[in-house]
């Protein structure tokens, strides 16, 4: 049946869920490449992994661990699912999507559990798709577990579930059960998690080699049946880890990730790209750009308006809105951010009596702006006003990163320029900061030249 957007505002309200990434084939999906100015994003990503979609030339690196950055709620997962679909369809890659949030406990997540989840998902996929691997290929991983269980058995009985998994039988199904029992064990208790973590750390080289060997075997199987040439992991949810875990995972334990010889993409929070601590270990080039409504010099970017209007009208029927001007207002005040647009739509549904008209839209914008008032400080307004006066500047210090992280500041064209959130610009604090700036020349924001104007 053809999809029809809801025509009743209460139905629209009921169906807005921010955290919902659209699965491949979802009829609410809107193509945003042109709107984001990201026509080359997929091309660049594919080439990083050795495939040129235009010529179908293929020469993959032996291993590549790339990060994929983006604003919270900007559509990273939705876009990556489309990329995965294309990469899969190329028959060059066997894309294994791993949602770490689904598999693991976000609380205190480290590389050890993530790697185990990757292995488990790969084995599940292979089994599900009817592939088989020789016992000899599975043996190194199984051996690693057996040794670990023996070691652990000399200590507390912390490995009961894993031991049970080890008895589940041979072949691919047995190994899947073994990995599943491991993820279940580390999910249930902090003490077990720590003990296993210690075990993995102590014997990581062996595990990394065994895992890499398993991947090679899988690739050989996939090649032999013409399905794909390389396994490519798409690890999602790693952009939502807690602050210190993010540092641990991407900075301190980056070597461990790199020890696995495979192709992998990890989602990562945008602020990580700019805080300077990545140290060049992981490939940190790829950013999913925001949808642009304006070019840097202020001219309209029609593709952005079209895409976001389309996105809005797939969530609420056109009849819900009193006029095109109301739709345009909502799009404008989203700043090109899909989740912010949905948030505005939700606010409209909360306040509208019937149609979403100009008055409703203005209330929704005011309400969204009020949310930002909870955390913005006078210095933040001053910085935002300064960035707007010169979008190319804005520095990269802690305050700027914080504003980026909280969406008060948005960046476009892979970070080449930034602008404040349009709803924030309606706040009195911003207006005052802008007025103050008008009587001061715009200077680069530095420690010697703080963004807060003299009172």
């Amino acid at each position, binding site marked *: 049946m053809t999809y029809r957007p809801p025509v009743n505002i209460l139905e629209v309200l*009921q169906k807005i869920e*921010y955290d919902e990434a659209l699965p491949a084939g979802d009829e609410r999906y809107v193509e945003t490449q042109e709107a984001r100015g990201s026509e080359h994003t997929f091309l660049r990503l594919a080439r990083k992994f050795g495939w040129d979609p235009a010529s179908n030339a293929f020469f993959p690196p032996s291993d590549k661990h790339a990060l994929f950055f983006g604003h919270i709620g900007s559509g990273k997962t939705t876009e990556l699912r489309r990329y995965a679909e294309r990469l899969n369809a190329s028959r060059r890659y066997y894309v294994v999507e791993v949602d770490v949030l689904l598999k693991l*406990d976000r609380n205190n997540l480290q590389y050890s559990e993530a790697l185990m989840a990757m292995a488990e998902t790969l084995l599940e996929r292979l089994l599900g798709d009817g592939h088989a691997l020789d016992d000899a290929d599975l043996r190194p991983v199984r051996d690693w577990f057996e040794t670990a269980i023996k070691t652990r058995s000399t200590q507390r009985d912390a490995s009961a579930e894993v031991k049970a998994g080890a008895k589940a039988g041979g072949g691919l199904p047995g190994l899947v059960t073994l990995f599943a029992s491991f993820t279940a064990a580390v999910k249930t208790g902090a003490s077990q998690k720590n003990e296993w973590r210690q075990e993995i750390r102590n014997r990581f080289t062996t595990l990394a080699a065994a895992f890499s060997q398993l991947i090679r075997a899988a690739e050989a199987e996939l090649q032999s049946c013409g399905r794909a040439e390389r396994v490519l992991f798409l690890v999602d949810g790693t952009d939502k880890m807690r602050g210190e875990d993010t540092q641990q995972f991407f900075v301190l334990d980056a070597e461990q990730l790199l020890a696995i010889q495979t192709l992998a993409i990890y989602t990562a929070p945008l602020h990580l790209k700019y805080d300077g601590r990545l140290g060049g270990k992981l490939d940190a080039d790829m950013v999913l750009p925001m949808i642009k409504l304006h070019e840097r010099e202020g001219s309209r970017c029609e593709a952005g308006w079209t895409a976001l209007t389309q996105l809005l009208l797939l969530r609420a029927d056109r009849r819900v809105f009193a006029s095109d001007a109301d739709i345009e207002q909502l799009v404008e005040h989203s700043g090109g951010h899909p989740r912010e647009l949905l948030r505005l739509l939700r606010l409209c549904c*909360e306040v509208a009596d019937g149609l979403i008209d100009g008055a409703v839209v203005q209330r929704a914008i005011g309400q969204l702006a009020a949310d930002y008032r909870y955390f913005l400080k006078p210095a933040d307004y001053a910085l935002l006003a300064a960035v707007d006066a010169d979008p190319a500047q804005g520095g990269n210090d802690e305050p700027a990163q914080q504003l980026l992280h909280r969406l008060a500041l948005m960046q476009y064209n892979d970070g080449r320029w930034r602008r404040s959130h349009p709803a924030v610009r309606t706040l009195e604090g911003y207006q005052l900061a802008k007025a103050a700036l008008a009587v001061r020349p715009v200077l680069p924001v530095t420690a010697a030249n703080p963004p807060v104007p003299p009172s």
Partner: protein
Amino acid sequence: MATSDFEIERLRLQAAGSLPAHCFDEFQRLSRTLLHGPAFQWLLVDAPHELLREQVMAALDSVLHAAGLQVHRLPLGRRIADVATLEKRLLKNVGKAAVVHVIGSQGWFDAARWDAFNVRRERIAAEVRARLVFWLDAEAIALASHGAPDLWAWRGGVYAFTPLPATAYVRTEGSSGDSPFVRFPYQYGPDVRSMSERRRRIADIRAWLDNHASVPVDLLVAPLDELGRLLYDVGDYDAALAHWRERELPLHRQRGDERGMAVTQGRIADVLQTQGQLDEVLRIRREEQLPVFERLGDSRERAMTQGKIADVLELRAQLDEALRIRREEELPVYEFLDDVRSRAMTQGKIADVLELRGQLDEALRIRREELLPVFERLGDVRSRAVTQGRIADVLQARGQLDEALRIRREEQLPVFERLGDVRERAVTQGRIADLLEARGQLDEALRIRREEELPVYERLGDVRSRALVSSQIALQLLCRNDSESLAEARQLLEAAYADLSRVGLPEAQLLADEMRERGLTVPSI
């Protein structure tokens, strides 16, 4: 009994209206998202003032309960000392409550606890499919936005219920000067404000009055007048009656405003009429109103009062006298004044009488050719819907049931729902039930009478309508031929007869005849 969407909406607005005026809009937003938003939501409420918070929660819970949503409260404190315990308590409630109020004491949520909540949020969202409402203060909310930006991005919404400074008051949008009220804003046309707009306006006026207790009395006339009419329009008859008797009449007396007193008396009579106190209504019309308007030479008000007297006579089946008043006392005045609306309304009343006399063609002609075009031109959606309803009455009498049903459902109900006119909506539902009964859909007809119609009349204290609907339900139950239905029917008929007799309505005799015909004993009153 399941509460209808309309009834929930009415309750929601009533609950919003019971709160301080400045909370009206936020309550509307919060209650709507809880009722209609997704099954899982994480909502932040900035409500630092304990008394106000309790007031808002109580109002909210009354609406949620009516909608069939179970509510649970989790106060954070000694028993819930950390986020892990909070998670356990939330999980323990899975499936039991659709809405969970998590009430945070000041300072409970610090950066570490937000962090701990953040790392659990996906799991909580997956396992606790409920609307989680976190009652906090601004400081805790700011900490959430600062300490856990991805958690902040995950919020369903932020709602603020903060006490107003003593000097503040809610000003009606677009108004200026000392009084935000204009006299009779809808005096010259129909009031097409939605139920929600009216409730909001009631809250605005009350807030203004609370903050302007000592202004000159002349400044109070317009807001008090509008408030009384609004209370009546939203069906809060008790409040309207109290308002007119205790606030507005004394005000007019204080100002020596004879006309104002007569008009207010007329409004009191309007309410009493819905309650079946017809003798008192006639007394007010004839003794408190007519002499005043005659003395003042106000021919329009005099004609209108005559029309109201004719309404009562019609209710008492004195049709000839009612028709005479309409044709000889009312119509000529409106024609002289070139008042097309009042003229059309009076013609509608004349058509009513003709219909009662069986002159259906003439009644239909008047409604289609004389009334509908006038209301269309005036943009008076209510009167247009009422007229459509009367056309449907005639079609129904002629056996054109499908068209009559379509008019009821598509032309009338949506208009009354939008206007928040609980009485007209109930009347229309009753007519739909009549049609369904005629088509043999007896169960649905019975359901409508019991669930959509009767509760409204009970709430409004409309004795006549309640008695008539009860007797309709009873007559339908009598057809079922089982002892339980028979007992219920007898009970309903006896109560209806007692009510109708008590207020001296002619339907009492008709009902007694019906009962005797069916072999039932008529109680002696």
